[in-house]
């Protein structure tokens, strides 16, 4: 039985098909050898925790792995992030992080930015469920912090 009279269809905006797909089959989870960035992020409030590894060559991401446990939103978001950063320049990654932050805050993003985000725009559904925004942002904030520290 699917949702039916229970009103669960209202959640479709939060749990879009693409989100559930990334939740069930997370991308880029194989460990990176000799990572340049290797960190754990967690949200003690939720108990969500992720292990992020990045290989950075000449200011571009040549290897990425994100694994961990958490709710569907945090896991899907981590998988979307892992998919996005692979092969991107560190500048592009930092711009994308900024863009996702604005998207989740409910701010406008340009068409150009929307193109870069692609499937990631599906995360925008979280805005209607404010307590879940931090689930979506956890891995993004962690990776951004790690990158900043690495580049500093």
């Amino acid at each position, binding site marked *: *039985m*699917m949702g039916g009279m*229970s*009103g*669960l269809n209202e959640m479709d905006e939060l749990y879009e098909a693409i989100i559930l797909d990334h939740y069930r089959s997370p991308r880029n989870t194989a460990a990176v050898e000799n990572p340049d960035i290797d960190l754990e992020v967690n949200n003690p*409030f939720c*108990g*969500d925790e992720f292990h992020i590894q990045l290989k950075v060559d000449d200011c571009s991401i040549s290897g990425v792995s994100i694994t961990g446990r958490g*709710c*569907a939103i945090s896991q899907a978001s981590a998988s979307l992030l892992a998919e996005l950063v692979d092969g991107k320049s560190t500048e592009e990654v930092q711009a994308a992080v900024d863009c996702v932050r604005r998207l989740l805050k409910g701010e406008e993003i340009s068409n150009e930015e929307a193109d870069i985000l692609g499937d990631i725009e599906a995360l925008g559904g979280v805005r209607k469920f404010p307590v879940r925004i931090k689930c979506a942002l956890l891995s993004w904030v962690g990776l951004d912090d790690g990158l900043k520290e690495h580049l500093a």
Partner: protein
Amino acid sequence: MSESTLSAGTRVFDPDAIRADFPILQRKIHGQELVYLDNAATTQKPKQVIKSLTDYYEQTNANVHRGVHTLSMEATNGYEVARTKVAKFINAPRSEEVIWTRNTSESLNLVAATWAEANISEGDNIVITAMEHHSNIVPWQQLAFKKGAEIRYLSHNDDGVINFVDASSVIDSRTKLVSVTHMSNVLGTINPVAKLAELAHDVGAVILVDAAQSVPHMPVDVQAIDADFLAFSAHKMLGPTGIGVLWGRLDLLEEMPPYMFGGDMILEVTYEGAKWNDLPYKFEAGTPNIADAFATGAAVDYLSDLGMENVWQHEQELTAYAMEQILSLDNVKVLGPQDSSQRGGVISFVHDTIHPHDLGTALDQQGIAIRTGHHCAMPLVRSYDVVAAARASFYIYNTRSEVDALVNGISETEGYFNR
């Protein structure tokens, strides 16, 4: 023990009549009837308690222990009557042993900052259980860091039952304080506090009982369990937020230094110094939470009319039913005692594939309010190798059909995520 007189109700325990007293239960959440199962976090309030607040502000409002005018005398009288009601409710020998605080956390901090500060030294130890709420861990950790004292944990088995063989070796001659939860807010375990009091007293230690989850749900008699201190909050027992209770043995409270300084807690002030007021005022600096004390009295009246034995009976029956229904689900595991007779009305559970927060959001869409997360007991939740858990907790107005709604809601959620 006069338990029967303590807990005998004067009102028939009729869930439909009880529900009619709670205006919030008429609310719709996402178009569905509210099923409120987050009572271990805070309970809803009956109209009698809400009315006591508006009555107070409309008819009585004045400061206490100050004026000679009628309103001040009425406010003072009502404030003290409420204290007497609380004392009787927990069978305290004297009402001046009941100190009003903000909540259970403040009650625990008060003991840490006064009694423990004066009585715990380097090399002493404080014994707590491994299933405490953060509020019964952190104050002791901080005190132990400061004093060079040691925190020791009483272990429990996988079913959440304290290991007593272990207890008698953990509590030793250097133990000064045993501070334990009467009922775990995560596992639902009811701890044998009278037995722990005996172990504590055998070595000359005092015992503090965190009764935040027990006083609202079962008859609690501070003399029968032989406690030295007992702490609880009004908002978990139909009362308002912002007020709690510390009960302490008279001789201990008399020896303790004040917690905060200011008005009301002094007898006499000169430019050179001050003399502390008598109990309980020594611990109640400044204008207290008068209105909420009135409302706490109304909450105690409400529960006393029902009878705590009946409250407990109702929750035991509902918990047994809920355990049976939840355990019948294939993918759900319940933390804590599997035998419902060993637990109170708190059921924490994890689903094999659905994270508690996804479950919590999905149940909310169906009007069902549960708690998700670490339940302010991170070390305990982690010890079960889960990152978070879902928790359903019951009170006097909950019914079997609400348990059915929860179980059905979990199944609906499985359907949604497996589509």
